[in-house]
């Protein structure tokens, strides 16, 4: 019997057209997935882990994940943030049982090996035996058996971590343009978490990244966005990437709820849609000093989307499991100095986003439909030619350029 196509990642060939095609085997092949976990999430990348404001005090910790690997981020006694793998150095137990809390040290429940907040092993019960019997070998060294630690970068209250300790700085990783968008939201003010939302989506994780790097769809899929002008192709906008293509931003200004020359092809536009509670959409121009943009959606390789739509701001963290399923973990936040009205505004606008969001519902449904569509056709490919075939910045949103740039980098890293 000749070998068949599925499950043979090592023999995978990218279509000859290059980044204007995305072969569907990238969305379902288990070997591709395993390799992504190794070389992307486990490799030379900064992965979003959490916010500093979630762990304000020494000993505060929260659980998080990088790709499909569990980690813990913790505030050390000296105020620094450490990130360790949630896996005991003894026999591998996922030792941290609480989602969050405050500890002076980490103790594994199984045999109570104890680690300090840096992940160094500081205690092994019965190391010297009990009543002169048993115990660890004389040459057993605590320092050889600490937790796996990650390189940590924090900026503007946001914590990133990398399995690769030789990473350049986070600033170099983002590059100047992407960094300026990042700093736009994370401007040094204290952050305040408003709440979490969590979804499991039956699609490959890259489908989510494509979705956020694809302003083309927003003017067509999202009736709500389009009708109320929250994000629409006829308003001033741009699509930009860093020099590698791994990060991107979609930037736009709000339009009005009326037909323009540009809306003629937007069948989703409902010019007569009205809200009973229009205050929900009333934006407060909090970033007006930094330009006209009312929406900035930034994708930071490989696991973060920074959402700023009007006044609803959130981190969207991607968690992987398997080729055909991922989770989206949202942390909605505001600033410490928000007054009640501003907090209420953010909470109201949050109706746009999350599992029941007026906009997000569309995306969640369509992402699962993409996976349904591609899963059984590994040898077919997506056509990604809107806006041309290049990977250069575009001063508009009628383009899929950021997807092409993403796969340019992906192919480079994955060796495809």
């Amino acid at each position, binding site marked *: 019997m000749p070998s068949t196509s599925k499950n043979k990642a090592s023999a995978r060939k990218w279509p000859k057209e290059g980044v204007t095609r995305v072969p569907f085997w990238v969305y379902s092949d288990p070997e591709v997935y395993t390799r992504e976990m190794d070389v992307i999430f486990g490799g030379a990348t900064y992965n979003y882990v959490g916010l500093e404001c979630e762990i304000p005090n020494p000993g505060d910790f929260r659980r998080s994940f990088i790709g499909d690997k569990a980690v813990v981020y913790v505030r050390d006694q000296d105020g620094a943030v450490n990130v360790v793998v949630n896996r005991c150095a003894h026999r591998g137990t996922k030792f941290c049982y609480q989602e969050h809390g405050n500890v002076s040290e980490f103790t594994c429940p199984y045999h109570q090996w104890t680690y300090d907040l840096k992940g160094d092993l500081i205690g092994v019960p019965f190391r010297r035996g009990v009543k002169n019997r048993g115990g660890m070998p004389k040459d057993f060294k605590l320092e050889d058996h600490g937790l796996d630690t990650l390189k940590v970068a924090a900026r503007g209250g946001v914590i990133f971590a990398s399995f690769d300790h030789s990473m350049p700085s986070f600033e170099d990783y983002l590059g100047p343009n992407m960094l300026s968008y990042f700093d736009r939201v994370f401007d040094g003010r204290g952050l305040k978490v*408003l*709440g979490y939302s969590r979804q499991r989506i039956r699609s490959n994780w890259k489908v989510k990244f494509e979705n956020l790097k694809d302003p083309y769809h927003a003017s067509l899929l999202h009736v709500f966005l389009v009708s109320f002008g929250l994000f629409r192709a006829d308003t001033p906008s741009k699509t930009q990437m860093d020099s590698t293509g791994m990060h991107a931003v979609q930037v736009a200004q709000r339009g009005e709820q009326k037909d323009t020359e540009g809306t003629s092809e937007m069948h989703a536009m409902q010019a007569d849609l009205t809200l009973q509670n229009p205050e929900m959409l009333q934006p407060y121009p909090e970033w007006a000093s930094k330009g006209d943009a009312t929406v900035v959606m930034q994708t930071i390789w490989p696991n973060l989307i920074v959402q700023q739509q009007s006044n609803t701001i959130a981190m969207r963290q991607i968690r992987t499991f398997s080729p055909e399923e991922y989770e989206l973990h949202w942390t909605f936040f505001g600033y410490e100095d928000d007054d009640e009205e501003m907090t209420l505004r953010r909470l109201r606008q949050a109706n746009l986003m999350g599992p*029941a969001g007026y906009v997000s519902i*569309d995306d969640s449904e369509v992402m699962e439909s993409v996976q349904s569509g591609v899963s059984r056709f590994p040898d077919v490919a997506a056509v990604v030619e809107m806006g041309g075939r290049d990977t250069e910045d575009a001063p508009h949103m009628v383009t899929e350029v950021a997807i092409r740039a993403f796969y340019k980098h992906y192919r480079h890293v994955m060796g495809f």
Partner: protein
Amino acid sequence: MASPIRISVETRLEVEDLLFAYADCLDHGDITEWANFFTDDCLYKLISKENWDLGLPLGTVLAEGKGGILDRIAAVTQTSVYHQRALTHLITNTRVLADAGGVIDVTANYAVLETLPNQYTKILNSGRYLDKLVRQGGTLKFQEKLCIFDSALVPASLIYPV
């Protein structure tokens, strides 16, 4: 251990009637009638137990007043893109906790079963209701309805109200 206030049999049954009519509207009825179960100044909030326990204000759904309810209906019926699905609410453990000052405090447990085309029925959402009811024109209505759901992790979307 709670010692429940004695509530009249009629009130208890009327409360169950309301909860079950509400569920019937969402499961088998016309969702545009969902607003009729609420007072004009109502508050509807669907919030994960995770946020609730942490004291975080974010709701998965927040609808303020009947206007908020109507906007949610409009969004679900006129703007959102999704597959058809069947819902079945199982409402159990209804308890009338208080009936004083014109407000009836009610709690109940619920599970919403969801069935997508060609898929098995699954538990979409479960948790408890914390409701405040008032009588208007001879009928009980929700002045406040909090739905605190167990699993913060939602399978894709929560398209219809709970």
